[in-house]
């Protein structure tokens, strides 16, 4: 147990000193194993982890889903989504903000990244809201929060990573995210309602669209529907595996972007290289997390923790609830991927020992990441919007996002209290 705790402490110190997390975890893992098991085995094991993670067929979902999201963003499919939602509810008070949430949810169904979703929607939805005279705080808040739907509604990069690190079925995780994603979208729309109710100045009503134009706008979203059907229908309909589905989705998104003349050779190269860089960054983290987990495997920690928790005698849900509280608090100041990768080796075995479903815990993890991404002061989605819309100012963004953070915390509570929200759809898979 002592070795394990020292290991965790060392990682925290190194990370605080600004050593990249991957290097901190990897280094501590190697040194820890060297001291407990011998240096030759430690080096051999490191080489093996690098080899296995590098030559891994199933891990090809990671670059392919990232690539799909980046091509989809390039293809301009977000415009049609927003346009369709706008046509139906744009004339209501706050209608554009509601339309943004709906468009985010739709876009989330073909893009696995929260940041990509927020960045794309900021280019599409913000100008319309600005034109209609929406307040900056409401428009940026709703885009930042809506963007996080990208990681709950499948496909989802973060679910893939959670699935790999904890050896949980990724197909089930994807299915599990559907209902919580829709529920969160509804809650975010409630937050919009609340904001416009409290201060109508936030969002003047727009013009009504005629029914013929509405149907026309609705026809525009066929591209998104087609891609979604292609990937999710193909995976769950048994045409191809989840791993292959990512490749098919990426190829489909590529063909779409190509057909819409959004891709030059240079633009394609940029998308490919950007996706590859993200992949390489993630794989260094995965490799390091595995090395560290291998070290933990040699310590007595997994057994000791299990014993300690069962001795506590607390209701299991309360223990998970306490973990979620820690995550929400840490998430305000920490980068979320760091937070989750650091704590999973500690929390996951406990949750398993308490007899919970790893899929359910995975959905909770995605939810706390969603919260962390938009909770000030440190939230990646907020920073992305600040970079893309420099005129708005971070303080305006911070001010507008609070109702959405609150609603996402409500969503977290609901997911915690009603596991069937997450587990009902996956229960149809064996």
């Amino acid at each position, binding site marked *: 147990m002592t070795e394990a705790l020292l290991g965790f402490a060392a990682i925290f110190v190194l990370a*605080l000193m600004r050593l990249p997390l991957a290097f901190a975890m990897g280094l501590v893992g190697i040194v820890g194993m060297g001291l407990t098991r011998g240096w030759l085995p430690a080096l051999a094991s490191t080489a093996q982890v690098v080899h296995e993670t*590098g*030559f*891994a067929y199933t891990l090809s979902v990671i670059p392919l889903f990232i690539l799909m999201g980046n091509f989809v963003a390039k293809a301009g499919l977000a415009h049609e989504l927003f346009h369709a939602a706008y046509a139906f509810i744009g004339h209501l008070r706050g209608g554009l903000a509601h339309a943004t949430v709906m468009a985010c949810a739709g876009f989330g169904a073909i893009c696995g*990244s929260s940041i990509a979703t927020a*960045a794309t929607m900021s280019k599409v939805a913000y100008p319309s809201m600005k034109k209609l005279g929406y307040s900056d705080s409401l428009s940026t808040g709703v885009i930042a929060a809506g963007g996080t739907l990208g990681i709950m509604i499948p496909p989802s990069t973060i679910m893939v990573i959670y699935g790999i690190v904890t050896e949980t079925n990724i197909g089930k995780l994807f299915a599990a995210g559907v209902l919580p994603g829709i529920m969160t979208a509804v809650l975010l729309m409630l937050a919009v309602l609340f904001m416009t109710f409290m201060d109508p100045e936030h969002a003047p009503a727009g013009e009504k669209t005629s029914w013929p134009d509405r149907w026309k706008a609705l026809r525009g979203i066929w591209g998104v529907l087609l891609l979604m059907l292609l990937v999710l229908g193909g995976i769950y309909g048994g045409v191809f595996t989840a791993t292959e589905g990512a490749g098919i989705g990426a190829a489909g998104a590529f063909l779409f972007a190509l057909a819409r003349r959004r891709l030059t050779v240079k633009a394609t190269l940029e998308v490919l290289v950007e996706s590859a860089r993200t992949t*390489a960054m993630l794989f260094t983290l995965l490799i390091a997390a595995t090395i560290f987990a291998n070290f933990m495997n040699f310590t007595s920690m997994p057994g000791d923790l299990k014993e300690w928790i069962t001795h506590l005698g607390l209701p299991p849900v309360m223990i998970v609830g306490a973990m979620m509280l820690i995550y929400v608090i840490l998430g305000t100041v*920490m*980068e979320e991927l*760091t937070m989750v990768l650091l704590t999973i080796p500690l929390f996951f075995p406990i949750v398993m020992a308490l007899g919970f479903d790893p899929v359910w815990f995975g959905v909770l993890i995605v939810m706390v990441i969603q919260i962390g991404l938009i909770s000030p002061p440190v939230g990646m989605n907020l920073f992305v919007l600040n970079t893309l819309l420099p005129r708005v100012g971070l303080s305006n963004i911070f001010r507008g996002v609070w109702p959405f953070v609150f609603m996402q915390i409500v969503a977290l509570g609901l997911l915690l209290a009603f596991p069937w929200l997450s587990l009902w759809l996956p229960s149809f898979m064996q």
Partner: protein
Amino acid sequence: MNKLIETVCGLLTAAALFAIMALTFFDVGGRKLLSNSITGSLELTELLMVVVIFAALPLVSLRGEHVVFDSLDHYLPQGLRKIQRAMMQAVCAAVLLGLGWLMWQTGGQYLETGETTAQLKILKAPFMYGMAALCAVAGLIHLGLVFRPTATEEAGEGATL
């Protein structure tokens, strides 16, 4: 020099990623429509994955895109910050150069045992050597950054989440 690394590694990783995508597309398409999949598509994907990951690694280092816990940045005085950055770049360089050496040794072992992929019988050793070389390149980039530790400061935000 940086320009050269960016071009070579960029082309390499982009080509490999595109190849994985195309390979999956034609493999599944062939299986569904012509009832015949591409032999060894699984192991080709594995070999290409190695190229995608490790050719992109120097690019990540070059742009300072590794996930860093930077919340304490504002509390450190400028001078101290510079020394701290330099130290951490040195650690990164040491880790990556060490890893390069380790993978080179491992590549040698693979060459000795003659291990191949299962279906196409492609030797794995050259890919291990490539891995090793690219780790070393990334290590050298960090070594260069020891002397101008704030060069990558505001450069990149990883778009993972």
